[in-house]
């Protein structure tokens, strides 16, 4: 087994252990209702985390996504209020916009050889500012098509509701896995994360890959914005502050190396579900403050960072032992 798959198994192990603890304490939690809500409540986070996984795998970071989600919500709400357009063309317009936005950031990162941190930080302020520019207040969305979307669900056995946005998230993860593991672009992303210089020597088109990976993240942020607007039924420029950091946390808890080059899209799904599970546990408990979510996530992050350091050390010593 490769050492880089170990974090994935640890992630899955932690998630299963978490499920077990929940089930022992609150047997009612083992229901399709909880599962349905878990998927629905975390849909927007999961989708944006798919994009973030690819960005982090490539050795970058995208801090703009939280603001882009907020911008998307406001953009959709204002467009639907002020123009007579149907939501579908608005969605298409928005996705084109956020994809281009991501591509621009990727282009700047590559061309100016600037740290992704700085460029996407600027992108974060810009998108948030643009959202304010459109509307400072929360704008409700009252289009009948939205009602249809919000009420679209499949009834699972046990009366759990598998909502449209929950399914959309799962499909996004499937897409992410195909892109990351089954395309040459995906291999190039891993290669860039493994070492830029070497990747170039091996024939990776660095500029193209960088632009594409941030464009993909922009696309996912836009999609996440659509899902979030369906979820909340409104657009608000102050929404999803800090979501980019939650997404990064989900990626790291999912076992992806923050320095890039190693990790799995599936791990991120488990990471997102683990974070959702903690939240659900706190809701079920009823006496705990919701801040405990943050504390547990903080601890989990710490555990994973230590785990990755430990693994790195382990594989080095093992290699050294073999060479000796």
């Amino acid at each position: 087994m490769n050492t880089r798959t170990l974090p994935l198994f640890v992630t899955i192990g932690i998630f299963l252990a978490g499920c077990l603890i929940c089930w022992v304490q609150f047997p009612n939690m083992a229901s399709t209702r909880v599962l349905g809500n878990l998927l629905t409540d975390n849909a927007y986070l999961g989708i944006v985390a798919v994009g973030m996984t690819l960005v982090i795998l490539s050795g970058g970071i995208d801090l703009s996504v939280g603001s882009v989600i907020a911008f998307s919500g406001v953009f959709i709400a204002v467009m639907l209020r002020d123009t007579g357009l149907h939501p579908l063309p608005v969605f298409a317009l928005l996705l084109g916009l956020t994809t281009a936005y991501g591509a621009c950031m990727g282009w700047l990162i590559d061309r100016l050889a600037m740290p992704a941190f700085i460029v996407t930080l600027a992108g974060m302020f810009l998108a948030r500012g643009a959202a304010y520019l459109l509307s400072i207040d929360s704008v409700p969305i009252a289009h009948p098509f939205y009602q249809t979307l919000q009420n679209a669900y499949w009834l699972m056995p046990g009366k759990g509701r598998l909502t449209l946005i929950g399914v959309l998230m799962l499909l996004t993860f499937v897409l992410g896995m195909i892109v990351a593991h089954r395309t040459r672009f995906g291999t190039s992303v891993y290669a860039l994360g493994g070492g830029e210089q070497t990747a170039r020597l091996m024939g990776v088109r660095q500029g193209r890959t960088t632009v594409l990976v941030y464009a993909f993240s922009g696309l996912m942020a836009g999609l996440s914005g659509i899902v979030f607007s369906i979820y909340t039924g409104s657009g608000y420029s102050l929404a999803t502050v800090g979501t980019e950091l939650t997404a990064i946390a989900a990626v790291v808890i999912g076992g992806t190396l923050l320095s890039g080059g190693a990790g799995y899209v599936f791990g991120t799904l488990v990471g997102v579900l683990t974070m959702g599970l903690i939240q659900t546990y706190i809701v079920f408990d009823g006496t705990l403050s919701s801040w405990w979510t943050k504390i547990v996530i903080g601890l989990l992050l710490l555990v994973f960072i230590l785990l990755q350091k430990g693994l790195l050390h382990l594989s080095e010593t093992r290699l050294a032992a073999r060479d000796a």
Partner: protein
Amino acid sequence: MVLSIRSLTKIFPGTRALDGVDFDLRAGEVHALLGENGAGKSTLIKCLTGAYQRSAGTVRLDGAEIAPTSTVEAQDLGIGTVYQEVNLLPNLTVAQNLMFGREPRRFGLIDHRSLRAEARRLLAEYGLDIDVDRDLGSYSVAVRQIVAIARAVALSGKVLILDEPTASLDAREVQMLFKVVRGLRDRGLGIIFVSHFLDQVFDLCDRVTVLRNGRHVVTTETDALDRMALIEHMLGRTLRDEVLHNPPPDRGPRPEMLRFTGIGRRGVVEPFDLTIGKGEVVGLAGLLGSGRTESAELLFGLRPAQTGEARDESGKLDLPGPRAAIGHGFGFAPEDRKTDGIVADLSLRENILLGLQARRGWMRPIPRAEQNRLADDYIRRLDIRTSGKEKPIGELSGGNQQKAVLARWLAMNPRFLILDEPTRGIDVGAHAEILHLIHDLVDQGLSILVISSELDELLAVSNRVIVLRDRRHVAELTGAAISGEGIMRAIAATEGAPA
């Protein structure tokens, strides 16, 4: 002739890195490219791999003139390169590395099954049976080298350049690699082999080309060449024109000041003993890559030694790092002055006072008047030529920069100075001044270890010369035995046949 290079010239601002070099590579031969630092080996290779564009001359591959502008283009043309630092990705699997950019696809998606099958088939040709699904990083450097070679051959298939591929391999792994290389030669590839290890060159290569100072010196069959002649070619002197030199004055027996015993580090330098007398100059000789600089770094604590200890007259010295070494009165003027020696943007005064200030601690700044006095003093004593002590040191000439580095150590009043290539990149006039300075310092009781590729320089200053070969200290020459011939014989001696 698979590759034919005629009067290849590469000019950088201020230097001719390559000057009209001719080089031919036959199909089915291993051709060694040898030369000391700055001889032009890496420039030649970079011109072939597209990392540099040549200034003049022709390069013909299979009769057609080529001028690659990138490594990828050179690869497509048929020139593959494997470097000492393996240029593959440790975080991808062996199969992914082998097939990168050429993954078999079905319906637009990578077909992992045929990817693995193809990778296994490729490696089988090299007699390597490993799990291609494991990460490349989990295998030893030798296996990674072979994977890199397999990839390069599969991509290019005409010319294979091996740039010091054996530098971090042990003897068994070297043989494993050589077997692969011989197999490729028999398949008709032209292979260029760059190495500092002469034993390996004689073992593996059919022909040898020596470069020196950017010029072609000689190309000959390996069988027709003996070691001594090869080293003469590389160092650029013959025993017949042995230059008369003024040996340093014999200062009589010197009291021992420092004694290092069994200092070594695995894979860097084998354990060695070294004593340094008070007021003595010890020279370290050897070819590039023989472990000269590494020895000095161990002595200074720049690389922690795994074994051995250091003592002076008062007892054992701890050398966990440079800071402790400086505390014991050691100084080290590194080989790469521009990156390790000077802080180019700071003024001459600041550079001279850097060490002293660091030792005092940054909370107690040296008063400006004192700084000026010290700087002026050293500028005068070492004859540093500058328009003023506030000039950024990066604007001074190499010789004056080196003097400033020396001044920095002298200001700290050391007892033992290590000078690694003290005259590298310094013009002839300043060269003599630096050597003169070394004599003066020794007269004042300082002990100095000099590392140099220039034999004449070592002969001119050393009271004793230690010769290194293949990361080992192999000989120690004193008194009348110190001669160019003696040093070269010690370098050339093979195992079991000491000089």
